[in-house]
């Protein structure tokens, strides 16, 4: 999935660069650990077909603690390694936050917590941050607690209207966006100076073996479906999906596609393995910051981009719901959101954050990768609500199409 921005301080940049070199290692290591959990998971595999589970008793009043599972480098960090916004929150709320960079991929995280989660038991976190397609599953399966909007005035006031009514969770009863991003096209300006405006340019024979697509089917198929004129947040069906999937199959069979990646396409770009790819907006910002030039270009295809979010959710067995809501509310303060956005470089779902950022970093505040213009947002969509059958069938079909 997604990541962080570059602070200006060169020492910090050096530190982050160092940290990022080990990023893939950490991610893949976690993947290995996830596979280890396969055995444990299978051994403990409870029969499916969840009986209804109910929220755990909220002990927030007596226990001023909160355990938050988030992605690596997905929050502001200062030179001392502390999280300034989180420190401020702890001071003002009196809640001790146990912040864990526990999520390296939605799939791996789910594999680890799945059994407790499905049984409504405490998974060890009161708050987790998962991407749309996974959040949709969580909501659909009823394994997350309803969130009380009344307890979060900032969210009510500042949640971006574009995200307020996601189809899998109308009215945002179970999930609140943490950060958002756009899936679009990225290219190396040196090797592909013309830039791209359409997915079809990825299939240029000159780029054979020099492109990557994204691992998750929602990103890749979402972009292709839109290029075929399908509006993904409205009604579409198997035929439209199959048409998009055919494109993937063909390009894999033709060896046009070098690999399917997560955000490690940045290394593929850096080592010259690829010239263009499906990418996430924030990553391109970081790659350019690292290269200290506009080495890479990014565009949302004219026929439409894919807008996604990582969302706060409270597992059914989490006993600190009120504390979690207090934290979510805090991060919907535009000033706080601007601070975070200035660090992570993805799109903040908090209205007013751009104005706040203007106050301390006007250049950043006018960067379209962080605050995309209205036109870009207008042609970017999220997926409509999927039935379990669709989710399952499409995931499986895409997974098989990835293999030649």
């Amino acid at each position, binding site marked *: 999935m997604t990541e962080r921005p570059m602070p200006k301080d060169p020492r910090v940049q050096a530190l982050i660069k160092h940290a990022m070199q080990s990023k893939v290692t950490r991610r893949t290591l976690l993947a290995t650990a996830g596979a280890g959990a396969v055995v444990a998971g299978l051994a403990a595999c409870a*029969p*499916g077909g969840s009986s209804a589970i109910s929220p755990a008793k909220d002990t927030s009043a007596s226990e001023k603690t909160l355990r938050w599972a988030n992605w690596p480098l997905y929050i502001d960090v200062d030179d001392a390694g502390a999280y300034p916004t989180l420190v401020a929150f702890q001071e003002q709320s009196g809640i001790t936050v146990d912040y864990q960079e526990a999520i390296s991929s939605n799939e*791996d995280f789910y594999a680890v917590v799945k059994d407790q989660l499905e049984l409504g038991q405490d998974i060890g976190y009161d708050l987790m941050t998962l991407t749309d397609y996974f959040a949709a599953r969580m909501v659909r399966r009823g394994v997350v607690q309803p969130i009380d909007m009344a307890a979060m005035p900032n969210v009510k006031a500042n949640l971006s209207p574009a995200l307020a009514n996601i189809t899998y969770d109308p009215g945002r009863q179970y999930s609140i966006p943490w950060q958002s991003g756009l899936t679009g096209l990225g290219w190396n300006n040196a090797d592909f100076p013309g830039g791209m405006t359409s997915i079809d340019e990825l299939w240029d024979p000159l780029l054979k073996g020099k492109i990557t697509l994204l691992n998750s089917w929602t990103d890749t198929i979402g972009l292709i479906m839109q290029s075929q004129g399908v509006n993904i947040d409205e009604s579409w069906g198997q035929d439209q999906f199959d048409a998009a999937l055919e494109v993937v199959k063909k390009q894999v069979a033709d060896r046009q596609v070098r690999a399917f990646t997560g955000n490690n396409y940045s290394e593929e770009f850096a080592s010259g393995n690829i010239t263009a790819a499906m990418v996430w907006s924030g990553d391109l910002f970081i790659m350019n910051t690292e290269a200290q030039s506009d080495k890479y270009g990014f565009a949302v295809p004219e026929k439409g981009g894919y807008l996604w979010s990582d969302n706060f959710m409270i597992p059914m067995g989490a006993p600190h719901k009120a504390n979690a809501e207090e934290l979510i509310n805090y991060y919907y303060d535009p000033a706080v959101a601007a601070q975070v956005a200035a660090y992570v470089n993805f799109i903040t779902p908090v209205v007013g954050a751009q104005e706040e950022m203007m106050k301390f970093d006007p250049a950043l505040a006018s960067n379209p990768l962080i605050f995309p213009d209205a036109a870009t947002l207008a042609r970017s969509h999220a997926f409509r609500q999927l039935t379990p059958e669709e989710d399952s069938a499409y995931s*499986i079909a895409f997974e098989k199409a990835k293999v030649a």
Partner: protein
Amino acid sequence: MAFAAFANTAQAVDAAPRKSSKIALVLLAPGLAYLALFFLTPLVALILTSLQAPALYGDMGEYVYAFRWENYVAVVNEYGETFLRSFGYALIATMAALLISYPIAYFIGVRARKWPAIQAIALILVIAPFFISFLLRTLAWKQIFSDDSWTMETLKALSILGPDAHFTGTPFAVIFGLTYNFIPFMTLPIYTTLERLDTRYLEASGDLYARPSTTFFKVTLPLSMPGIVSGTLLTFIPASGDYINASGDFLGGPSTQMVGNAIQSNFLVILQYPAAAALSIMLMAVILVIVAIYVKRSGTEDLI
């Protein structure tokens, strides 16, 4: 002749009389309990999972216990080619590792006996890669053979590779990675047997008119079979189940999927636990059969 005089010394070596005492059972108990808990239980759970059927009106990843043998049929139909590819890659990697490891092990274990310091240094060099994460080393190779690397530029400049050729994402890269990563597992067991190789057998062979090459094939090689067998098993088994090298994040690509990758994708991504479990069981079963045939044919049952 007079040898009959001491024919009584010619008795066969008898097996020591077996005593099954209660103490032995008590001593075995912790080990058996451990095996039951950490080997049998997961295995049974895995088998049960592999037979599960999708829950009625269930969501992704929701299954109920059943006896759906069709899961195996489905897996064989769908992943037959992947299995062949896995074992093919593993076999080639094992052979390559053997060809590379044997001379190294021979040098360390036999030739360098007179110089313990050189022996120690060479052993450290063999083991040294273990000090660095397996994943990091594999990624390093990905860097070394990336399209813009000087390695690839040189190979292209020398016309060894075509101008548009790339290394990562190809079967060759995956086999290369498997070979590289498992070489220590091949070298160390062979070294261990060669290190104990009694060079007096080699002298005896030379004394019996065998040229050095004949001595190698008739004496040294057969006597190092236990090491070769353990080395090839230690390489082949993990290599056939490996999912790192063939992964698109490392040296593989869309056309190099191995069984390990299929299991990972079924388990983690599309939540098809029965298929993942059935694949694991199949992998285990096929490996067991291959290993059994191999050990039987190499005639080293009593040596390993």
